[in-house]
């Protein structure tokens, strides 16, 4: 115990003497969380002065184009700039000046009406409701095409959401046109007689978890703080592994090997100090979420009633990260090996863990891999506490996995060290 305390104190001195390193340990995660949250929050929020300019060439000038334009304007996310020529719009988009150009074809509204009327008349004739028995030669109406030009650098997610939005708007117009055609045919043009209710019959309501009577509505901060805090916690493997490699290279490790002290005790001292660092990082993140974010116009982090559980998750996530750092430091021979590997590995673990992209949208193989990422266990445990209002018992599986990960990595480190020194 005395040796463990001495080792812990030595690690404390080493870490506090490196003021620059210490500052990086605390300042960089703070900068990271602020930057990411601001970026992500603005992606989801409609900010008046942050509209995306898009080009629109309107050859239709009818109801359909009017609905599309209004749809974009009302979304508050886009600024619609009208152009006269398709070629001009296309060039501007392909040069990267604009993200998107929408070309609405000629007579789109008119032809849509005609097409719908043709179809409705056909249906009514089948039912014998059509009074005009004269056989009309049907006009051939060609299918219409709304053309979209995207900047080649535009991300797929943006493309998909724009396409879905336009598709939804057009479907709505089509449905309304069908209703209107039926209304006109059946009521013989009498608009006062409402036969159809054109309002949507099916609506969506999101039911969110409740805490007492209060609904838990997640915001970007509730999502970001756990994800990026975990990312920052795992970055501890870089300074920790460097600490061990340095010790090996400066000869102190040779002296320790001749001392009557076990490698486990040496690692124990490092674990305690770096775990405290992880928890301080976590506290800093929480404080930023609670006090700084509201002042920056971002949502407040709500930790009410969850603080104890959050610290438990942070504690075990910290242990897992430290286990990995100890293993990396034990195996690596130089700082040139440990630092780049550690940094890259954390990014890979974060990607696998669902920090960048949610796990459920990953390919099956990656989803399986994700199950063995400690960052995934940590993130799930944090989401359990932050967003799913889970009780302690519900996130026990995740923290058990984190603890096992720590134990296994430390055991491998000790065994590797023993084997390595048996030259």
């Amino acid at each position, binding site marked *: 115990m005395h*040796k463990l305390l001495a080792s812990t*104190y030595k690690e404390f001195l080493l870490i506090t003497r490196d003021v620059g390193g210490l500052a990086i340990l605390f300042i960089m995660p703070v900068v990271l969380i602020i930057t990411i949250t601001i970026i992500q929050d603005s992606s989801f929020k409609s900010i008046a002065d942050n509209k995306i300019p898009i080009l629109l060439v309107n050859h239709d000038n009818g109801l359909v184009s009017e609905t599309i334009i209004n749809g974009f304007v009302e979304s508050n996310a886009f600024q619609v700039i009208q152009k006269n020529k398709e070629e001009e719009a296309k060039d501007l988009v392909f040069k990267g000046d604009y993200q998107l150009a929408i070309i609405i074809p000629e007579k789109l509204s008119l032809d849509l009406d005609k097409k719908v009327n043709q179809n409705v008349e056909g249906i009514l004739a089948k039912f014998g409701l059509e009074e005009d028995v004269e056989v009309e030669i049907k006009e051939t109406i060609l299918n219409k095409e709304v053309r979209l030009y995207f900047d080649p650098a535009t991300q797929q997610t943006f493309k998909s959401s724009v396409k879905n939005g336009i598709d939804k708007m057009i479907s709505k117009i089509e449905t309304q046109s069908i209703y209107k055609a039926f209304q006109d045919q059946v009521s013989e043009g009498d608009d006062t007689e409402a036969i159809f209710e054109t309002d949507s019959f099916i609506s969506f309501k999101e039911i969110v978890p409740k805490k007492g009577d209060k609904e838990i509505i997640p915001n970007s901060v509730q999502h970001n703080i756990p994800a990026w805090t975990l990312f920052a916690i795992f970055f501890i493997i870089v300074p920790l592994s460097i600490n061990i490699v340095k010790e090996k290279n*400066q000869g102190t490790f040779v002296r320790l090997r*001749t*001392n009557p002290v076990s490698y486990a005790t040496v690692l124990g001292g490092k674990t305690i100090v770096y775990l405290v660092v992880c928890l301080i990082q976590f506290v800093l993140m929480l404080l930023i979420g609670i006090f700084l974010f509201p002042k920056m116009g971002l949502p407040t982090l709500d930790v009410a009633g969850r603080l104890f559980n959050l610290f438990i998750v942070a504690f075990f996530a910290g242990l897992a990260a430290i286990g990995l750092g100890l293993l990396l430091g034990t195996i690596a021979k130089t700082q040139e090996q440990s630092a780049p590997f550690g940094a890259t590995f954390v990014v890979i673990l974060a990607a696998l863990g669902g920090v960048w992209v949610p796990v459920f949208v990953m390919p099956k193989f990656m989803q399986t891999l994700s199950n063995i990422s400690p960052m995934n266990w940590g993130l799930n445990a944090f989401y359990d506490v932050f967003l799913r209002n889970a009780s302690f018992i519900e996130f026990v599986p995740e923290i058990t996995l984190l603890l096992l990960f720590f134990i296994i990595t430390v055991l491998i480190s000790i065994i590797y060290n023993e084997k390595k020194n048996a030259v």
Partner: protein
Amino acid sequence: MIRIEQLSKKYKYADTYSLSNLDLFIAEKEIFGLLGPNGAGKTTLISLLCSLIKPTSGLFTIDGLTYKTSKNRLKQLIGIVPQEYALYPSLTAFENLMYFGSMYGLKGKALKSKINQTMDILGLSKFANKKVSTFSGGMKRRINLIASILHEPKVLFLDEPTVGVDVQSKNVIIEYLRILNEKGTTIIYTSHHLNEAEDFCTKVAIIDHGKIITQGQPKELISNQSNANNLEDVFLALTGKGLRDHA
């Protein structure tokens, strides 16, 4: 005290043995000098005796103990002063010594008093609270020595303890080692300073190509070698004048 029998060491991927069937006995309270050209096997022998590496074959005992059966007892019994400065540069001299002393189970006032006393003898008292990174080579060598003797080892291994230090520091180190030896510590020491070894050691062994080519008291070796006026003459006569560069 130290009994070595048929001790051999061949490193992984090495073509030749660094130590080959070495037999040696070092008596208690001896100041034993291991001399030899670069790559002769001196550091390998010390590393083996300090359990930093494992032998390929053979065995040795220190005070009748082996690492297989009494690892921690043996570690408590020995002290090693490595060739490199095995110290934390960002810690003060006192903090370094407190830490390494604690690793031997020393604590509290007894440890502090031992540190202060030894630092005083080696002329470092006023630098106790200065960071080691600010020390000169000679000061670091002295701290390196203190870190190895706080637990009062019965056997002290020194791998070139005076390399790169000024005459004054070297003198202080050698004098202090003499004091330790007088108190009963057996000293095993490697050096390229043959004049220093001639004065300091009670017995020396010259090693080359992993084998002991001669051993005895320095004066005895000088008198047995024709045309030799000092240990350096004996050394050159036995190991040759050719360069021993190796990578």
